[in-house]
């Protein structure tokens, strides 16, 4: 499980460099996220562009990461594959988490709207 973190525009962008966040990967994902979320800005963006699929264990691990941040800091997601989107839609998690189409959209939402 490879996670890389890069501070960009007052956010910490965490890129998941792994094809799946499934039951086999969820525990390690959670532990690595714990390390990255301990300190840092108020806004975190999880870049999912390399992730092809996720299951409910992976989804639970992302919820666990949101719990680590608490109510005052936010974890947003970007660049979801169709399979990952399906999981968020089926569980209605897409109505709870902010999801951006691309990392560019996540960092500069206003530029795109204008």
């Amino acid at each position, binding site marked *: 499980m490879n996670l890389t973190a890069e501070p960009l525009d007052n956010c910490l962008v965490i890129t998941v460099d792994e094809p799946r966040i499934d*039951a086999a990967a969820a525990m390690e994902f959670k532990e690595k996220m714990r390390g990255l979320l301990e300190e840092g800005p108020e806004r975190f963006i999880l870049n999912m562009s390399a992730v092809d699929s996720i*299951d*409910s264990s992976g989804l639970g691990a992302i919820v666990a990461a949101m719990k680590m941040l608490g109510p005052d800091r936010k974890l947003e997601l970007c660049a979801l594959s169709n399979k990952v989107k399906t999981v968020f839609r089926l569980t209605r998690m897409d109505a709870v988490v902010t999801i951006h189409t691309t990392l560019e959209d996540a960092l500069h939402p206003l530029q795109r709207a204008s």
Partner: protein
Amino acid sequence: MDPSIAPDQTEQEVVFRLAATNEGVRAAIRNASDYIAEFNVSQEDLTSVELSLAEVLNNVVEHAYDGTTDGVVELRIWIQDPHIYIRILDTGRPMPNGRLPLGNPADVGREGCEQDEGGYGLYMIRQLARKLRYTRFGPYNQMSFRITLGAHLYLDAQSEAMNEMPSL
């Protein structure tokens, strides 16, 4: 009958055996998906199958076998257009109360940090699959369900209709 599904293959059930480990589940999903892909099913239908297999098989590894690594799971797939019939057998512990839990979706009225970490898997299968049934006979647990090809189209229409509903 969709001509893309060869008639001579429709009558047979294919059996995969896997070790009850996370890695065993990964490999079984890949093998089952490769097998089903030969029948020219759409990517969306394949995703439905992969997701429901992942959730049922993970459930067996985590709960029926409780993380012990010597369990064996049998996955049986039978394709008869427009359905894919799936049975999963194991010899682990029975379901609590002999019944399949309902599962739950995210609570859209709450923040991300207030959501449950579990319960989503069963909720997902219940949306993707039909005729979902759990039976215990002798030392065996059996989960059976079917995925209907093209069913995701109805699901999409449903969720669009839900999005258009005024919030209460």
